[in-house]
């Protein structure tokens, strides 16, 4: 057998914290050969990123490699001096980070940043660095590389920034590329372009790639082998085909089940014996609840050259009890639309008829005390950001009841308990602060707050985008259940067609402020008429279908 390029044996990483030592990675073994793509899949807190940080020796001060060895191309990384590591990083081992904008220096032209790396490692001189940097930019398929050389990160889109980060990472032709969630936060079509680029460049240079991701679909599409991590341990390691054909570990099976796929219903995301499963019933839509007509929002001075039409003559209807999906990529105007419907933002023109009243005539400022305020509520994208960090969960849920509820103190207390129970939040968590709650628990607090006033229309702005798939599965089922129990209408905003499909009766696809296609979910997704819808659908990485019969799971403790 040939010698692996990277050989990690028995790696354990520990962090010193306020509450003693925490083991983030426990006895991990990994081998990676030249030219191979290995995926590390796991949910937040599984230790997948920490493993890669240990590999590059960029753990923060509290973390240390407690035991085990990391050997890369014959060099013992665990015992290498900082000087050796400095030379290795960038030249032999490179990394692509999650947030491309944060990884780039905001006040330095991107071309310069590529030059810096090459000059640092002696691969270019001041004289020829510029030409080489432009070559590198062309290699990552940036058009007009000559002009882009002078661009600053803020002038480029997220996808472009990630290309620059890739260009920097690959400038010195490293042997190993570590990609830590390289496409999180990017649109699906951009994600596809970026991932295709990484794979293509890796193949061209015979480079080994370590792809760290939470998305099984992405790993399935691009990796040769996959290791699954849970709570700091590797629970399963197999080739991609094997893993999807015969997932052995119960955690892998749970993860595969929770990943939305083409043929799944919302209840399929949870195991058969899970009490939180909900099978949606088909119900005819009621009379129109919200009618939006010719809605326009222009930013910038009106009639001036740089006025931007974020939302352009939008018309749609949400019926009572219906769940309508609004899909589009970032910048298409979907968030502006939701802010206008929620009456947080005043439209430039157009009407918003909600239950017979034209809301567009009421200024957003005055709407806070309007009787219809309680009828329109929203669940936010980022559960952490949407909770006041100084308030306990109880206080956050009680807030709308205090302002608009007109309940006595005792009734309010009871109502909060009831809401917590309804969204499946254990009562003892109500007195905790947001930073003491997990992502899923914070999402529940947000949902409980939104339904506290029995709204008729709930806008869900990517409510599961920040959650792990297993938590997303539970939250999606909860949302289906709540809609049926409380007879609410949903306007579900998302970039993920797979998730929209699970929750919506009807879908609208939005591009550049306009709706390009609209129709019943099943038809729109199976026979998309508009090329944009088709490109969106094609860009989603799909995990292979679940095997009809799963092999008997190994013992969980194994």
């Amino acid at each position, binding site marked *: 057998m040939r010698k692996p390029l990277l050989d990690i044996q028995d790696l354990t990483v520990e962090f010193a914290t*306020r509450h003693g030592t925490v083991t983030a990675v426990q006895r991990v073994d990994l081998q990676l050969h030249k030219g191979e793509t290995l995926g590390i899949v796991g949910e937040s807190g599984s230790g997948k990123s920490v493993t890669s940080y240990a590999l590059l020796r960029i753990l923060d001060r509290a973390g240390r490699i407690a035991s085990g060895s990391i050997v890369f191309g014959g060099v013992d990384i665990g015992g290498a001096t900082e000087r050796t590591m400095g030379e290795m990083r960038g030249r032999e081992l490179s990394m692509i980070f999650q947030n491309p904008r944060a990884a780039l220096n905001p006040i330095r032209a991107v071309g310069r940043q590529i030059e810096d790396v090459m000059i640092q490692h002696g691969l270019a001189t001041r004289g020829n660095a510029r030409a080489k940097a432009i070559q590198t930019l062309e290699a990552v398929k940036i058009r007009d590389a000559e002009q882009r050389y002078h661009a600053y990160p803020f002038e480029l889109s997220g996808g472009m920034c990630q290309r620059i980060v890739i260009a920097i990472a690959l400038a010195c032709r490293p042997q190993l590329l570590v990609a830590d969630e390289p496409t999180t936060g990017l649109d699906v079509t951009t994600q596809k372009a970026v991932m295709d680029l990484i794979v293509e460049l890796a193949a061209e240079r015979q480079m080994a790639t370590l792809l760290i991701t939470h998305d099984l679909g992405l790993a399935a599409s691009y990796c040769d082998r996959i290791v699954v991590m849970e709570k700091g341990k590797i629970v399963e390691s197999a080739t991609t085909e094997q893993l999807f054909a015969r997932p052995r570990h119960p955690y892998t099976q749970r993860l595969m089940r929770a990943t939305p796929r083409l043929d799944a219903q919302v209840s399929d995301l949870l195991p058969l014996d899970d009490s939180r499963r909900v099978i949606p019933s088909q119900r005819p839509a009621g009379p129109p609840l919200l009618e939006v007509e010719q809605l326009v929002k222009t930013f910038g001075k009106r009639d001036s050259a740089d006025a931007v039409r974020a939302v352009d003559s939008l018309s749609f209807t949400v019926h009572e009890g219906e769940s309508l999906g609004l899909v589009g990529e970032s910048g298409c105007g979907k968030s502006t639309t939701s802010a206008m419907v929620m009456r947080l933002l005043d439209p430039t023109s157009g009407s918003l008829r909600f239950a017979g009243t034209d809301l567009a005539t009421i200024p957003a400022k005055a709407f806070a005390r309007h009787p219809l305020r309680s009828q329109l509520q929203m669940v936010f994208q980022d559960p952490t950001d949407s909770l006041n960090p100084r308030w306990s969960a109880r206080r956050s849920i009680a807030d709308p009841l205090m302002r608009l509820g007109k309940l006595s103190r*005792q009734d309010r207390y009871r109502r909060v308990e009831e809401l917590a129970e309804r969204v499946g939040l254990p009562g003892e968590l109500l007195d905790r602060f947001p930073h003491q709650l997990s992502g899923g628990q914070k999402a529940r607090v947000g949902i409980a707050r939104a339904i506290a006033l029995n709204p008729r229309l709930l806008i869900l702005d990517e409510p599961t985008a920040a959650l792990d798939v297993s938590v997303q599965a539970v939250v999606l089922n909860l949302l289906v259940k709540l809609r049926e129990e409380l007879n609410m209408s949903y306007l579900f905003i998302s970039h993920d067609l797979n998730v929209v499909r699970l929750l919506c009766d009807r879908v609208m696809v939005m591009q550049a402020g306009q709706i390009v296609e609209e129709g019943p979910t099943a038809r729109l997704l199976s026979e998309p008429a508009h090329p944009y819808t088709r490109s969106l659908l094609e860009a989603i990485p799909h995990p292979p279908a679940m095997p009809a019969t799963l092999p008997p799971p190994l013992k969980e403790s194994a």
Partner: protein
Amino acid sequence: MTTLTADGASPLAGVRRFLRHLLYVMTDNPMTAFAFMLFLLIVGAALVGPWLVPYDPLATNAGSTLQPPSWQHWFGTDQLGRDVFSRVVVATRLDLMIAVSAVAIAFVVGSTLGAIAGFYGGWAERITGRCMDTIMAFPLFVLAMGIVAAAGNTVENIIYATAIINLPFYARMARTEVAVRRNAGFVQAARLSGNADWRILAFQIFPNSLPPMMVQISLNMGWAILNAAGLSFIGLGVIPPTPEWGIMVAEGANYIISGHWWLALFPGLALMLAVFTFNLLGDGLRDLVDPQRRT
């Protein structure tokens, strides 16, 4: 039973949680504990000092002038035979009172103006910003001198002058802290819950902006003490024979040349200790009010 615990039991639980957290902050960082001890000492001296001191700080004694430190007079006596130790301890109250009032006024007015500017932006922001810039354009101590000289030599005017020169720091800090949270998710959520703008600003955004301001308050306290003492030192503000650190240093300075060093040294040390305490306390205070550190 349970209904009573709704909001009723939370103050008690809150106090207990706060005390536990206080203990943690103290044990986690010994410097904070040390600063806190000093702080208690200073506050104690300010509150009960006048009843504890061995001599009347104003009583002159022609028989024992300019005595060096001894068991009878720990810090010696001054040119009029007054006990320097008693005067230093009694002066704590006045100096601390000036600093606390000045910082309190600066904090309340400055952070209110800053918070409004940060939340509403536009004209509110422009006007406040330019006013603060105008204050900052003067050398601050000279501005304070000017204010006291123009308005009159009283303790109140020292307080107002110190407050005015501290205003811009709070206004700027509050403006930034509020502005970054203006469009946070929890603010949008509060709008959906039917909160009026002022309520969101006062009860949601402002408390979240407090931790860095706490540090500013503590640093400013030291500075305000120094400022008040400085004004008295140059003869503005507090009028002799009132015991005040700045005046005592000023009077004592004349005697250093003749070898009577204790007159200026001890009030000077007291001044240094107070400033040192408040500077050290700043970091501890931030830990205390930051909910992220409370587990």
